[in-house]
């Protein structure tokens, strides 16, 4: 077993550069052929892997003052009169001496580096030196030029230039391309590649019937015109853009940026040229006369995470966000690993730390906070953002605003209180003291036995500890008929502390002699030193995050007072106050009582006013009189009524503002923040100040471009930039063939893998630019090539010669991306809701995942959506960074915390469990079964064939049909014996089963449909 495993490993690993250097190694080892060893193809990777760490671009790591990445340096004669490399003379070269040394102290690479050159490596290096040690510019930095299309032997196979590049390599290896695949397989392949959905039966049938030469081209064009194209293309772009619906890091609250996702879908669908696609996402806001759409596009660079953890420092995380933008930009557009240059000059590629911070400076002018505040509404926590009101919302907004304006005017026009009236009131106030009486608690519900009641039932005491829920009823007596106000009082004997109140619900009910109830209206008031009305309001609102804080002194109680707004009937026999509330963050024991008073409401005044009034009208200053007049004015019934309406209207306006969708965008500060090189990348170790500048080694920015994000974007898509077009076409190639021409699609540097077909890569890149960055046209060229149309069958010969299909002597065959696995099941079953765009939705999800790991008390829960929300395409699924959708994760979706350009493709039992048992797929199987029974004709063979075609596009072969027919018959017999099981199976999922269908047949067909849904082919593009 172990031996087999090890052999397996060797064969697994004989991949990668096999194509490129297999021949070289064989030749070098056998000494059979003496062909020239290329620097780009062979030598750079050997030197980079084994030597550059200490003898490469980074001066801080450089040993012995020797660098091998620059020829002049490598051949320089040292003090001892020798050179590391003597072109043409391996035996004179110090490099050769050291790599062949047997002395553990002298051998290179050093023993403790754990790097080791193989015999093949040494042979290749010696041959390269013997051949003159010619250096070449790294292939990815070479300017893009028009590439001649190669000649091939079998020109009849060729449909477009792509095929010549591919075929010439295949022929060089003595292989032949595969034949064109079956029409059903081809249309399914193209549909999945372009729309992410399987083709419909109508599309398949039309294609099968179309015998014209351009039948397939028509199909490709049809798919490219579908609006699902934009959705399919957006999926890869969302990974690149690290798009998610939450902020990430510890707090991980929801953010709103789905309008940007809609923009991406739309941009692909209207075939926005890739250069413009780039410019609008970087700097839509800086384009003269920018449209709303162009501003929304700038959400691209706001998709990074944002930290709201209480203890972090703003500058610490601002540095992270900016570094993220640099790393994302350089990875997505330039295919470079700039994260290495954040702390030091790049060890393998010619980028300096200054280059990193030069790029950072382009992004360092966004008016954004480094740290969010989790206590604030999310929008205020993470500016800048754009509000996107609907026309209806705009209308309501202006209507509410004019109501607010009008009420404000009416209030201003109310008659003022006269001095006589004031005099009378002051006299009344000074004649009486306000007296409070304790109410009696009659019922108490407190969690965890945290409250205890005093013997006279007039006080509740609480121990100290975290959060508490409390509900109680208190009876006001003995003279309830004349209650004018109630008060909740809190007191602590021990220490100062805060009582935090939220979710306060309070009601006062009067009961007359015949037990008739009447609910009394109450209004918060400030009386004496009670808490302000604004503060108290925080306890009443529905926002769980807003909390009223009552400050308790050692011997100064805190209180909340409510006036009884409407006089109760004098016949009331009892009055009861019932309240529910939550305390939080309690740190000290405290006690509470309910009190009431029965005096005139004219006496319910704050201490501040009372103290003034106590002086008597005669001794008041003009200022004090004014203060009292204003207070009385505000207490008048008319004022109160209007104020109430005003606060209602203001509240509605606020609520409307909160309903209006927003989206995160970029904006530019007038004065950019200064940017410094950060020593070792640390936010608190600034070095030299740097200006916005593109990397030194790449063609400079056109001097007429502005030195801001707009200029940077235009530089990225400047035709002289050798990287953007190469990197971009490679990613599209990867999306279709599963592997890029450069396999390391995120790394076009020295440590990345060179292209399998360098000329084809360049040809495609030039094509893209010459077509005006036309993405649909590029995809059409790829999809209509003979290369793409090949059968994906593997032969033992091909598997041996090219296990990873890098030569493309066969068509692509690989598992669908997570999103498309689910989308295909929904689409085939007819469950898919084909609505484009909009806020993220919450489809089925295992219960309890959020509660286990998110913040707080396990109350953060995933609420499964309803109706259409359950059946939207997967790119609309809510993406929480701390707990991404588990079914997506199981199928290799990234966390979306940082840019990701290449997903792994694993094959695990967890995937099988998901497809077999997740409600999503059980319900989809039932719906597919319903279609099979309803639309599939009258016998089981035709019904099974129908379902097979809906999912796999092709008809089952005889043997496949036999297995599925047996399966159906077995399941039918089985469910007939156990009809309860059939019922249970049919009950799964939100949508009810079609009642007109026979239960047993539907259950049996559901089991057949689930079988088909679980086939390797069902989740594979073939």
């Amino acid at each position, binding site marked *: 077993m172990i031996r087999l495993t090890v052999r397996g490993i060797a064969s697994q690993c004989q991949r990668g550069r096999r194509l490129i250097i297999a021949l070289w190694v064989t030749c070098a080892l056998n000494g059979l052929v003496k062909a020239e060893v290329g620097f780009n193809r062979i030598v750079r990777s050997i030197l980079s892997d084994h030597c550059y760490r200490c003898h490469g671009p980074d001066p801080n790591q450089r040993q012995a003052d020797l660098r091998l990445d620059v020829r002049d340096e490598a051949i320089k004669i040292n003090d001892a009169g020798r050179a590391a490399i003597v072109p043409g003379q391996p035996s004179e070269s110090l490099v050769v001496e050291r790599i062949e040394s047997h002395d553990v102290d002298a051998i290179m690479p050093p023993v403790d580096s754990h790097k080791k050159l193989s015999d093949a490596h040494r042979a290749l290096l010696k041959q390269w030196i013997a051949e003159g040690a010619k250096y070449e510019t790294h292939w990815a930095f070479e300017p893009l030029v028009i590439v001649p299309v190669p000649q091939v032997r079998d020109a009849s196979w060729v449909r477009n230039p792509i095929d010549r590049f591919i075929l010439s390599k295949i022929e060089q290896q003595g292989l032949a391309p595969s034949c064109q695949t079956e029409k059903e397989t081809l249309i399914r392949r193209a549909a999945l590649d372009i729309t992410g959905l399987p083709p419909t039966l109508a599309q398949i049938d039309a294609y099968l019937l179309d015998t014209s030469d351009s039948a397939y081209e028509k199909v490709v064009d049809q798919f490219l015109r579908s609006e699902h194209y934009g959705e399919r293309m957006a999926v890869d772009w969302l990974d690149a853009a690290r798009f998610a619906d939450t902020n990430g890091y510890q707090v991980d609250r929801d953010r709103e940026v789905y309008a940007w996702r809609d923009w991406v879908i739309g941009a692909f669908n209207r075939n926005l040229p890739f250069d413009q696609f780039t410019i609008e996402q970087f700097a839509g806001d800086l384009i003269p006369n920018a449209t709303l759409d162009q501003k929304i596009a700038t959400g691209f660079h706001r998709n990074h995470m944002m930290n709201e953890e209480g203890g972090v420092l703003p500058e610490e995380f601002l540095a992270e966000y900016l570094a993220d933008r640099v790393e994302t930009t350089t990875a997505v557009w330039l295919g470079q690993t700039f994260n290495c240059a954040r702390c030091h000059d790049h060890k393998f590629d010619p980028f300096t730390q200054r280059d990193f911070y030069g790029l950072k400076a382009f992004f360092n002018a966004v008016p954004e906070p480094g740290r969010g505040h989790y206590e604030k509404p999310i929008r205020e926590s993470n500016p800048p953002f754009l509000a996107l009101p609907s026309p209806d919302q705009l209308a309501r907004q202006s209507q509410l605003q004019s109501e607010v304006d009008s009420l404000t005017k009416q209030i201003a026009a109310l008659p003022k209180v006269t001095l006589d009236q004031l005099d009378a009131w002051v006299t009344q106030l000074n004649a009486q003291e306000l007296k409070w009486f304790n109410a009696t608690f009659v019922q108490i519900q407190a969690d965890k036995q945290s409250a205890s009641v005093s013997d006279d039932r007039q006080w509740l005491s609480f121990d100290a500890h975290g959060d508490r829920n409390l509900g109680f009823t208190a009876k006001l007596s003995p003279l309830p008929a004349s209650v004018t106000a109630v008060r909740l009082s809190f007191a602590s004997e021990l220490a100062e502390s805060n009582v935090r109140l939220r979710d306060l619900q309070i009601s006062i009910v009067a009961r007359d002699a015949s037990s008739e109830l009447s609910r009394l209206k109450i209004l918060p008031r400030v009386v004496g030193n009670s808490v302000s009305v604004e503060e108290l309001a925080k306890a009443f609102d529905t926002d769980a995050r807003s909390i009223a804080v009552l400050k308790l002194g050692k011997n100064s109680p805190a209180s909340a007072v409510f006036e009884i707004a409407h006089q109760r009937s004098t016949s009331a026999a009892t009055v009861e106050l019932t309240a529910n509330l939550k305390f939080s963050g309690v740190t000290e024991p405290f006690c509470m009582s309910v009190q009431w008073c029965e005096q005139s409401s004219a006496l319910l005044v704050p201490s501040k006013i009372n103290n003034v009034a106590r002086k008597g009208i005669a001794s008041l200053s003009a200022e004090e009189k004014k203060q009292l007049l204003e207070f009385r004015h505000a207490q008048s019934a008319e004022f109160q009524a209007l104020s109430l309406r005003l606060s209602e209207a203001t509240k509605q306006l606020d609520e409307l503002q909160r309903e209006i969708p927003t989206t995160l965008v970029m904006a530019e500060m007038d004065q950019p923040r200064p940017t410094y090189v950060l020593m070792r990348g640390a936010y608190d170790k600034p070095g030299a100040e740097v200006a916005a500048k593109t990397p030194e080694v790449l063609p400079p920015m056109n001097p007429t471009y502005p030195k801001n994000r707009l200029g940077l974007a235009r530089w990225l898509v400047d035709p002289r930039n050798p990287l953007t077009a190469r990197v971009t076409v490679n990613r599209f190639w990867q999306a279709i063939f599963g592997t890029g021409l450069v396999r390391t699609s995120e*790394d076009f540097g020295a440590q990345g893998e060179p292209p399998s077909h360098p000329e084809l890569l360049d040809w495609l890149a030039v094509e893209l630019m010459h077509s005006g960055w036309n993405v649909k046209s590029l995809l059409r060229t790829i999809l209509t090539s003979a290369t793409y149309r090949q059968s994906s069958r593997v032969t033992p010969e091909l598997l041996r010669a090219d296990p990873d299909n890098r030569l493309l002597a066969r068509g692509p065959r690989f598992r669908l991306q997570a999103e498309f696995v689910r989308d295909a099941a929904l689409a085939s079953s007819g469950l898919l809701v084909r609505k484009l765009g909009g806020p993220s939705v919450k489809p089925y999800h295992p219960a309890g995942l959020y509660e286990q790991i998110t913040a707080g008390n396990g109350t953060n829960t995933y609420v499964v959506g309803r109706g259409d929300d359950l059946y939207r395409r997967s790119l609309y699924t809510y993406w929480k960074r701390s707990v991404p959708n588990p079914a997506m994760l199981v199928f*290799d979706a990234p966390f979306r915390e940082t840019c990701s350009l290449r997903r792994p493709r694993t*094959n695990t039992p967890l995937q099988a469990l998901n497809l077999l048992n997740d409600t999503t797929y059980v319900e989809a199987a039932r719906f597919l079964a319903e279609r099979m029974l309803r639309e599939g004709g009258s016998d089981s063979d035709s019904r099974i064939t129908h379902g097979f075609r809906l999912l796999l596009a092709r008809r089952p072969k005889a043997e496949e049909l036999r297995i599925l027919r047996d399966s159906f018959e077995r399941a039918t017999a089985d469910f007939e014996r156990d009809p309860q099981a*059939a019922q249970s199976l049919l009950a799964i999922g939100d949508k009810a089963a079609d009642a007109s269908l026979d239960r047993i047949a539907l259950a049996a067909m559901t089991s057949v449909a689930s079988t088909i849904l679980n086939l390797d082919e069902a989740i594979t593009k073939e």
Partner: protein
Amino acid sequence: MPIHPPLANCSRRLFLGDATACLGASALATLLSGDLRSASPLMHLTAKAKRVIWLTQAGAPSQLELMDYKPNLLAHFDKDLPESVRGGQRLTGMTSGQKRFPVAPSRFRFQQHGQAGVWFSELLPHTAKLADDICVVRSLHTEAINHDPAMTLLQTGHQISGRPSFGAWVAYGLGSMNHELPTFVAMISRPSGPTNAQPLHERMWGAGFLPSKFQGVRLSSGKDPVLFLSNPGGINPARRRAMLDDISALNRLKFNDYQDPETIARIDQYEMAFRMQAAVPELADLSREPESTFQAYGPESKKPGTYAANCILARRLAERGVRFIQLYHRGWDQHNSLPSGISSQCYDTDQPSAALVSDLKQRGMLEDTLVIWGGEFGRTVYSQGTLTRDNYGRDHHPRCYSILLAGAGICGGHTHGETDDFSYNIVRDGVHIHDLNATAMHLLGIDHTRLTFRYQGRDYRLTDVDGQIVNSILS
């Protein structure tokens, strides 16, 4: 013999002839694969540990209350922490507005335990009984001062997310030891007390840039201990088996036609899924455990989802060949009311943690199991908020804290490292997170500098560019 799918990113150096350079190749074993190696042929060293049980105390337990005994602090009650001790240490946003940094001596009594006389406080009576099996490291330190970066560093060797967790590295490097369960399992419990629980992230047991099959599989209490494990209503095991036979037969027909090895891998994974459907419920079903087990693990151990119940599961996972078992118990973040909060946390964890170690020992498994107990950083000697003799809070402290180690290759009854009188700075034998990880890797038979994975052109490893093996804690 299953045919394995290609490893996504195997180093090209391997092809050039240097097979040993690409350790990760052993990871060709798929997640949960049938590759039953007790010792990987690519392991560098003799392994003392076959598996790891990491008892992660999330939120940061206070070392001052548990094992870093500081008797001299009593004399400093409510006096300011000398500036010379604080030495410019960064403060968190929680205490940066505080005018004073008054020293809060621990309210709890300490005693020496075992032959070796290891100091433990009264909060850990059960752990203290195992003093001679446990190594206390008092000098662990980290760089991060806030939960998310610190937990990310503890788990992945880096403060910024995106790298593989320790468990994922081990799954990648050493592969599976069983046919029916995941290689790396994570379990999470909430505090029973009213303490606030800091959030975690799925990525903390994620695979980072390693293929996602190496990520930890979350095991929960409830109907589906592993996500999507149970058959849907109406599908009993016989029906499932029959369906799987059909799926397998159809997939074989596909393979005959297309010859794609991935199809065979798919068949194998469906079979593995079926085995998991039987193995996981059997694993999670504690009803067959004798009463003595529950007595040993304490009163909470009968409640599914508690830390105590998870400790029993940890032992059962270990018995069934799971290589990396990570528990998380949340709720250690006592910025205020620390004495009552930590008492409640210790009620949750002390007895079950100790019972787990004794249980492994009794079964002869402690000798090849590495058990680690600890959090993401320590807590400050000065009080946050109100300070009385009996009540105080403590803020985050990255410069030093304590963890416990036991089991395979660990020197029991040993106390490593020393902090100053304020448990504020390390005065002797500091251990960085990278050193801890390097040491744990060493015990697993892996040279931490050689288990690497190439991503974005760089060979990454768990210990970044650091990590020294702490030889003095090894037996």
